[in-house]
């Protein structure tokens, strides 16, 4: 997709970043102690902390990833909204107050509060680092996706910009500035998501989703005929060749020196060839978009409805709709999605995106991505259950969420800030369905990056709205990455260097170690953000949740609720959770595809590990604790 930078968007972006950096300088001057650096001195107001929680949590995965996934696969994307929010129930009812009571700076502090065990200090710190890095990858991928349309820069430049700014923020000021960045960004994100939703409702639904600033491409359909030699002929085009791939037929047609791909549809009244979107990697290194160089801008944004029904009659457009009427009207109509296929054309590699009419009712039920209905197998159903389990259990195990409990003065404040977070995050997640569906039918989707759906929808309604939303989305990433880097730097400086290695750092030395750790983790995040370009960020976050739920949650819950838990049990449970979750992810079909291998050849078919890795970690904790006769249990240490 070709994106042109808008001067207004650039100006707004620069102002926003300057504001965030200014805030960091301001708080940086005030942050002298390690308590200030890692936990904002425990002085943050509960309401501010609640919105900051929302800021931390509504990361690139929520705004970019979920909206994008809903836009491409409908309700299955909304499952992430439901699961992410449900996870807060675990955090509120089981974890918030006890964690506040037990810990100081890091998640490891809480786990180790009763035991003072080297094994816990080491394994919990490593777990914090691994989960944070898994969570950092999608944020960086989102950053890269965002700067391309905003500033017209390549993906990797976006990743480097975010990495550099965040390292600067964290290395200067730590948790206080991170909190206020999150507070401002969380609030703005919710306000502007409401505004974007109002635009969607006012715009209503149209068969041809033209906007003032961008016209929708008219995809050409032609009727082929057969000549006397039984060869396909298309009026106005030369038929150059054809490819049959997995039961689908694609034809290459030439007109005015440009080759374009068409898909053959067998319809009731005969065959029709309909133009597809294509990217051709020509042998020798050139890449053609719909048969032309990228700069010719012939690679279009997509997504529309082919049937709209209002009061039992088919219409071309609806006019403004209320929120529920908007959803039900989509449910009664047909949505045209663009599905991807890949094949070889001689020595060239071709990717095509062809039209597939999907009933609106299918867009509004699970099943387009997670196969639980038509074509489901036990393993696809297990994948679905495993994902929902990871989302439910993952939130309360995310280190950057957990450390936010240390920033408020009391347990009551920890609880109240969680409730503010649930209300703010829940409201936002309801909006994701409107924003995602709005993007799917408004001709704004970029088939190369589902992550850009919501910002591109805003762009269709005006550059001003797009600029503001993109700047907020960028700040979203800055904020979340800052939180993750604070959590990681705490794990390295406080848990590993100070406690595990027993260096007994002075306050100043600990802050300095934290800052060096922040720079190292930031650099690693940049590299990974570039490597994982193009993957849906919400899908990647699903993995982070699975690793967190498996490595951390059994340890936290059993420490709080099972008196026979021992330090050895906790340490081995963390190891079992990390190793099994990572093992399943790294050998999954999705990673096989990422390695350039055939996904079908992967070791197994499970993409979401939680159902196995969480259970394994829990059982490990129970068996090791019961077998451990040497060390005192949590109950004995109370």
């Amino acid at each position: 997709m070709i994106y042109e930078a808008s001067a207004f968007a650039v100006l707004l972006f620069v102002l926003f970043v300057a504001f965030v950096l200014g805030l960091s300088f301001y708080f940086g001057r005030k942050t002298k102690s390690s308590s200030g650096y890692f936990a904002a001195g425990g002085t943050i107001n509960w309401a501010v902390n609640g919105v900051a929680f929302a800021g931390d949590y509504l990361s690139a995965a929520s705004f970019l990833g979920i909206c994008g996934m809903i836009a491409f696969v409908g309700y299955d994307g909304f499952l992430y909204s439901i699961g992410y929010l449900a996870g807060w129930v675990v955090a509120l009812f089981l974890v918030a107050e006890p964690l506040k009571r037990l810990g100081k700076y890091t998640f490891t502090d809480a786990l180790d509060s009763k035991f003072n065990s080297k094994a816990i200090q080491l394994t919990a710190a490593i777990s914090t680092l691994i989960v944070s890095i898994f969570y950092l990858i999608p944020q960086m991928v989102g950053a890269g996706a965002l700067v391309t349309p905003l500033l017209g820069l390549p993906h990797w430049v976006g990743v480097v910009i975010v990495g550099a700014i965040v390292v600067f923020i964290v290395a200067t000021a730590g948790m206080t500035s991170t909190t206020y960045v999150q507070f401002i960004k969380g609030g703005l994100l919710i306000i502007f998501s409401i505004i974007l939703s109002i635009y969607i409702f006012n715009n209503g639904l149209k068969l041809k989703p033209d906007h003032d600033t961008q016209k929708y491409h008219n995809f050409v359909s032609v009727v082929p005929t057969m000549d006397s030699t039984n060869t396909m002929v298309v009026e106005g085009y030369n038929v150059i060749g054809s490819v049959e791939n997995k039961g689908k037929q694609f034809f290459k047609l030439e007109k005015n020196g440009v080759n374009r791909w068409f898909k053959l549809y067998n319809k009731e009244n005969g065959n029709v060839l309909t133009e597809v979107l294509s990217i051709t990697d020509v042998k020798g290194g050139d890449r053609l978009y719909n048969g032309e160089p990228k700069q010719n801008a012939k690679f279009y944004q997509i997504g529309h409805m082919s049937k709209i029904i209002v009061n039992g009659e088919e219409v071309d457009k609806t006019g403004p709709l209320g929120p529920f009427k908007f959803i039900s009207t989509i449910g009664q109509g047909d949505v045209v999605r663009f599905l991807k296929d890949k094949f070889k054309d001689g020595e060239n590699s071709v990717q095509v995106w062809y039209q597939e009419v999907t009933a609106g009712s299918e867009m509004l039920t699970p099943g387009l991505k997670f196969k639980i209905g038509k074509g489901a197998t036990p393993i696809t159903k297990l994948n679905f259950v495993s994902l929902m389990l990871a989302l439910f259990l993952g939130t309360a195990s995310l280190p950057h969420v957990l450390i936010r409990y240390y920033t408020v003065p009391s347990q009551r404040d920890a609880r109240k800030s969680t409730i503010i977070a649930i209300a703010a995050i829940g409201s936002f997640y309801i909006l994701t369905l409107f924003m995602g569906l709005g993007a799917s039918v408004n001709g704004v989707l970029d088939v190369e990056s589902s992550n850009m759906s919501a910002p591109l929808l805003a762009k269709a309604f005006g550059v001003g709205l797009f600029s503001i939303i993109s700047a907020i989305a960028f700040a979203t990433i800055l904020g979340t990455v800052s939180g993750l880097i604070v959590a990681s730097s705490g794990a390295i400086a406080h848990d590993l260097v100070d406690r595990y290695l027993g260096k007994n750092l002075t306050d100043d030395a600990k802050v300095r170690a934290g800052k060096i750790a922040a720079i190292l983790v930031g650099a690693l995040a940049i590299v990974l953000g570039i490597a994982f370009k193009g993957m849906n960020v919400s899908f990647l976050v699903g993995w982070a949740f699975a690793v967190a739920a498996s490595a951390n949650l059994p340890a936290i819950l059993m420490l709080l609720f099972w008196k026979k838990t021992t330090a050895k049990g906790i340490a081995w449970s963390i190891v079992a959770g990390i190793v099994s979750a990572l093992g399943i992810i790294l050998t999954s079909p999705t990673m096989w595809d990422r390695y350039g291998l055939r996904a079908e050849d992967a070791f197994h078919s499970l993409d979401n590990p939680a159902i196995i890795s969480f259970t394994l970690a829990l059982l490990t904790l129970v068996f090791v604790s019961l077998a451990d006769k040497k060390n005192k249990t949590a109950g004995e240490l109370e």
Partner: protein
Amino acid sequence: MDHGPAVVLGEDKASRRKQKLGVKMFILYSLVYAAFVAIGVIDYKLMGKIVLGNLNLAVVYGFGLIIFAILLGLIYNWRCTKFENEMNKEEQS
């Protein structure tokens, strides 16, 4: 360097009652959430059934789970605050 809480917290006499309430509410929400997942796996077509206005079960249940979490959170906070006011006050007097 010690690793106790970042701020000094007073004794909370209500913590056990709050924990019990939290566990009960967690179980309640987990059952409702599990039922949603079970419908998806066992009878996925039920999700497409129109149940309220022109909205199907999937949309109504999904929105319902989000709103239910917010409501439970508010009830939990109200009850916990009541416990704290009663029990910690008794202790002080």
